């Protein structure tokens, strides 16, 4: 059976499965729509959270970033896992004890203020929509490869499917579908990793393969070999290259961690468990399921890079035969060329491809002596690496089909979870909570679905010109959540004296500083050409990249909130009692609507 048919079959089968589950578990009430009726076991909840969490950024984009940034990409590995420690220790049990449906609801009650609730909704929507833009990029990449069309067409088709899928289900449907999606995506991620690790190092466990010697009998360790292969072509050494600077890496990691603990679609998960105890263990289970993918990713990234380099540089560097002939490029390169995400150009007209770092002046001089006229791999989109990996490693067709299905599962599950968070904050927090308290349950559900449709359209529009790779765009979303939501949640639980004015000004200044910084470097609402400082390293504050700035925004948030709360009236007594109450698990009933 040829690859295309097989891919259609596998993807078609998994989609039928998701839709079947979504239909079987479709939401009947608002309670089920938002929180799955609180009847979800911690292990099941952990698995669904993991699928919700591991998006196109984790599945499709992250290993590509690791492949090209080496050690520098550790920020994603630590940042997107370490946040669960914060979530489990600092937020999840208390928010479950509080027992409401949404994050703005907690902020509105804890800070006894509708204004605080509205500000929280706005922050939440900004972060979630940015996040969905990142997903759309991933969905576009996956669909364009799957249907063998260009990126834009892939994106439009993907938008349609997300729409049908998210609007129908609600949280209950999403929870069960996401369990199925987790199984598909983790299987699809680990199977090729095992094959590739076995091919390269002879060790079937990727987590160990990365520290093993090459299987070619040379006795060289895999990472040493990779360091040598990339430095031979003028690239930076894989295991030591940093992302920006070490300060930038520190701030970047911190920003992703606290962003994790501030993202509504993850927090919302801990509202859906039966008990406070379960909220603690759910975070742990989620991280177990996430860690399976995250500890595999370094092996996938490094080995994909090694395979890619060896595909193009087939022989000794500097010899004529050392580079692959264009007439002989493997099928996977031709497949990806169709999507526009992989491009090459024979600059020196020798009928071969030279792939090297022409920005490295010293190496470029050497290359010129060999008759190389610049790097001929003119575009290698990082986001294609995971999807292309099994093809590069010449794995059987069913593995390739599986990976496409896994990528789609990852992107769809997260997009659905996020859209739900957006829908609930608009229909539940803005309409029912603030502007139209008398709205009927049916109309509230309808408003939620309309909000989802609007968010898909908006995210799709920005997805045509994403500000960064999928993982980079998602990192910006984390920065926005980190700088606004996390600090007020944490202070709301751990600092009894934090008051209304402190929280409101904290959120506004935190997200304000972060957005200003991102927009001045990436363009206002990411529109190209409107960035007034340019996305250039030398203009960065202390060398901190815009993607990493959320941690600075969070510090501003904490500082402003602390100062403002000192000079304004302390919170009323009943609020201080409320805080004391959420600190102990006893008496956590089922959540009430109002």
């Amino acid at each position, binding site marked *: 059976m040829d690859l295309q048919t097989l891919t259609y079959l596998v993807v078609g089968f998994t989609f039928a499965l998701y839709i079947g589950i979504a239909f079987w578990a479709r939401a009947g009430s608002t309670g089920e729509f938002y929180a799955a009726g609180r009847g979800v076991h911690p292990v099941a909840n952990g698995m669904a959270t993991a699928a919700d969490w591991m998006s196109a950024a984790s599945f499709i984009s992250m290993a590509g970033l*690791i492949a090209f940034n080496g*050690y520098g990409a*550790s920020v994603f*590995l*630590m940042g997107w*896992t*370490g946040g*669960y*420690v*914060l979530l*489990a*220790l*600092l937020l999840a*049990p208390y928010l479950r004890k509080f027992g409401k449906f949404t994050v703005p609801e907690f902020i509105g009650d804890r800070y006894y203020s509708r204004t605080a609730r509205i500000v929280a909704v706005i922050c939440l929507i900004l972060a979630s929509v940015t996040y969905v833009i990142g997903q759309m990029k991933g969905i576009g990449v996956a669909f364009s490869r799957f249907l063998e069309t260009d990126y834009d067409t892939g994106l439009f088709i993907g938008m349609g499917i997300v729409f049908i899928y998210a609007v129908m289900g609600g949280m209950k449907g999403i929870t069960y579908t996401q369990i199925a999606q987790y199984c598909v995506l983790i299987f699809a991620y680990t199977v090729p990793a095992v094959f590739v690790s076995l091919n390269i190092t002879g060790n079937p466990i990727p*987590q*160990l393969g*990365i*520290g*093993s*010697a090459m299987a070619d009998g040379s006795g060289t*360790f*895999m*990472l*040493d070999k990779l360091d040598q292969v990339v430095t031979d072509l003028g690239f930076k050494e894989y*295991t*030591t290259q940093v992302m920006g600077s*070490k300060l930038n*890496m*520190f701030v970047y*990691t*911190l920003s992703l961690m606290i962003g994790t603990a501030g993202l509504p679609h993850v927090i919302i998960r801990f509202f859906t468990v039966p*008990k*406070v*105890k379960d909220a*603690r*263990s759910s*975070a*742990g289970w989620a*991280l*177990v399921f996430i*860690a399976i993918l*995250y*500890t595999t990713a*370094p092996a996938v990234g490094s080995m994909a890079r090694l395979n890619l380099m060896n595909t193009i540089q087939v022989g000794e560097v500097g010899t004529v035969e050392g580079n692959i002939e264009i007439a002989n490029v493997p099928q996977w390169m031709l497949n990806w060329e169709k999507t526009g995400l992989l491009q090459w150009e024979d600059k020196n007209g020798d009928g071969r491809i030279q792939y090297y770092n022409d920005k490295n002046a010293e190496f470029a001089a050497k290359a010129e002596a060999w008759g190389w006229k610049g790097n001929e791999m003119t575009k290698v989109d990082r986001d294609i690496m995971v999807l292309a990996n099994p093809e590069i490693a010449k794995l059987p067709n069913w593995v390739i089909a599986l990976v496409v299905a896994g990528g789609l599962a990852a992107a769809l599950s997260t997009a659905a979870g996020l859209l739900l968070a957006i829908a609930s904050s608009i229909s539940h927090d803005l309409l029912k909570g603030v502007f139209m308290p008398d709205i009927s349950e049916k109309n509230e559900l309808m408003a939620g679905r309309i909000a989802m449709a609007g968010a898909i359209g908006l995210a799709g529009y920005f997805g045509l010109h994403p500000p960064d790779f999928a993982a980079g765009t998602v990192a910006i979303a984390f920065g926005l959540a980190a700088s606004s939501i996390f600090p007020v949640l944490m202070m709301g639980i751990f600092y009894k004296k934090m008051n209304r004015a402190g929280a409101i000004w904290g959120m506004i200044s935190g997200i304000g500083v972060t957005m200003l910084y991102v927009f001045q470097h990436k363009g206002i609402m990411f529109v190209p050409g409107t960035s007034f400082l340019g996305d250039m390293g030398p203009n960065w504050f202390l060398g901190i990249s815009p993607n990493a700035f959320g941690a600075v925004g969070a510090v501003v948030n904490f500082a402003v909130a602390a100062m403002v709360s000192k000079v304004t009236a302390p919170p009323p007594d009943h609020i201080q009692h409320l805080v*004391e109450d959420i*600190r*102990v*698990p*006893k*008496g*956590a009933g089922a959540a009430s609507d109002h």
Partner: protein
Amino acid sequence: MNKTAEQYWKANIRLVSILLVIWFACSFLFGIILVEPLNTIKIGGVGLGFWFAQNGSIYTFLVLIYVYTKRMNALDVEFDVHED
């Protein structure tokens, strides 16, 4: 807040502080700040600092949440604030 609740909260804060120190050490300290000196120590073909940054920190996070869950559930019972 009555006496027990106050002590419960203090015990909670102490536990969380200890765990967060370890959280910081395994990621920011070993994986970023001290990465070069640690990389001189090799386990297999991987430098220790690189390993902490890409694998070790994640394993440590798992242990941290496990310990937290165990300890907190025990504290709930000890101070009689557990759910029914």
